Each structure stands twice: as C-alpha cells, then as structure tokens.
C-alpha cells in the first residue's frame, strides 16, 4: 500500500534512532553475544585517553553502519555470484580451489586462495556497490589537472566507476 509505504519511509530515520537505544544499552552492559562494536571501542581506549562518544553519537553511528553495511554487501555478493555463474570455466576453477581447502575454511587459507581473492577483487572493481565520487576542494593557489587550470576553492572529484575501467590500469577492463 502506497500510504503505508510512505509512512514507513518517512519514519525510517526515527525507527533506526529508536533502535539506537539498544546500541547504547549493549555498549554499556553487553556481554557475550550482546556485545557490540561501541563497547569494544571503549574497551580498547587507553587509560586516561579522552573519549567523546555521546549517546547521540552512538545512536547515529549505529544507524550509519546499518545503511553502509547491509545493501552494499548484499548487492556486491549478488554480483559476485552472477559473475561467476555466467563464466562456467571460472566457476570450475573456483570450485576446484575451494575444494582443496580444509573443511574448516580457516581465515589464513582463505586469504591465501588466489582465485577466490581475484574473484572478490574483480567483483569489487567492476560491480562495487558504491562506485561514487570522492569530492575534494582545490587549495587556494589553484592547480592544473590533465592540462586544465582549476582555480582554488573549486570542488573536484574522481569517481571509482571510470577509474576502475581505465584500460591503462586494467588491460581489457570489461573482462
């Protein structure tokens, strides 16, 4: 229903902020499975180090992490599966490599598996979920980029989508 959906979108920020209460509670008193990153951050600070992480900060950062850490990962993994399945030769190579590993698939052997890691890197290069711009401000004295004089204060950016398909860095960039 469009109206219900509109209401959900309009209140989504409030809802996530409400959830933040759990993040704050578990930061202070979480143990075992209820630990969270914020509690671990505080635990890792040096004695006497000044730490400012207010309740509002934790609520907002928890909300940020939900946005940054859910769809991005899911979309990239989905592209990875698709990219492998449409290349049966690659699929066979990858399956062979993983089949050689131990049953536990420990971190060290996964990090050392060349085909698996290439597949991940190439998926991130071509189908990374946020191939966006990285805006920067030109310093006041201005600069020259690729023959163009850029005045100070102008916002410029590089973007991952084009960089990741630059044939001078990646021969056969679309393969």
């Amino acid at each position: 229903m469009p109206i219900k959906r509109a209401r959900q979108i309009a209140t989504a920020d409030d809802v996530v902020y409400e959830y933040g209460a759990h993040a704050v509670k578990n930061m202070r008193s979480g143990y075992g499975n209820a630990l969270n990153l914020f509690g671990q951050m505080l635990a890792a600070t040096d004695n006497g180090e000044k730490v400012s992480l207010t309740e509002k900060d934790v609520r907002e950062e928890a909300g940020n992490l939900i946005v940054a850490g859910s769809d991005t990962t899911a979309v990239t993994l989905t592209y990875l599966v698709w990219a492998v399945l449409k290349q049966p030769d690659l699929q066979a190579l990858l399956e062979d490599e993983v089949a050689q590993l131990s049953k536990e698939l420990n971190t060290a052997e996964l990090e050392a598996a060349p085909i698996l890691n290439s597949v991940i890197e190439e998926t991130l290069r071509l189908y990374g979920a946020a191939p966006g711009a990285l805006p920067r401000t030109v310093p006041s004295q201005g600069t020259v980029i690729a023959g163009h004089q850029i005045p100070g204060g102008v916002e410029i950016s590089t973007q991952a989508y084009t960089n990741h398909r630059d044939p001078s860095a990646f021969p056969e960039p679309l393969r």
Partner: protein
Amino acid sequence: MRDAHAHAARRKLFARAFSNSSLKSNWDVEVRRKVSLAVRRIKQDASGAQKGADVLKWWTLMATDVIAHLSFGESFNMLELGKVCHLPWNSPTHINESD
C-alpha cells in the same frame, strides 16, 4: 562531521574495533554462523521445488543481521525469519513486510 580534529578522534576510536584482529577475535564465530545459515537457505531454495534461490534476498538478510549484531549487539534475526522485518526484537509495533 567536518571538524578535522573531531574526525581524527572518531576515526581512531573506530579503527581499533574495525581492525582485522579485533573483528576476527570478536566476531568470527558469529559471522560464520550467519553466513552458514544464509548458504544453507540458498541451497535449500535452489534445490527445492521452487524455481531457484533469490540470492539477493538471502545476502540482504545475512548482511543486515551481521551489521545489526555488530552495531546494536543484537541480531535482527531476519535470516531465521526468512524475510525483512521493520521493527525487530518483538517490539509491540512489530510490522512484517506484507507486500
């Protein structure tokens, strides 16, 4: 956050919790548990009577449960539920995705 000093302090705070060693020692078991469950579900759907598995759906539920557990200290348990839920933790206003 645009203040360089405040940003540096926040970044330092986050860097420890997001370091490889911290993530491995604190979260390896829990993340593996969720990944295994997602892969099991995909396998079930792919080999079942259905036409196939919706991998985007299962990866979304998996990634959201993982980051929810890391951020809030409690999973949304959407993998167990098998669908997106909007207000988890059995809140009185719990709404399930109905459409």
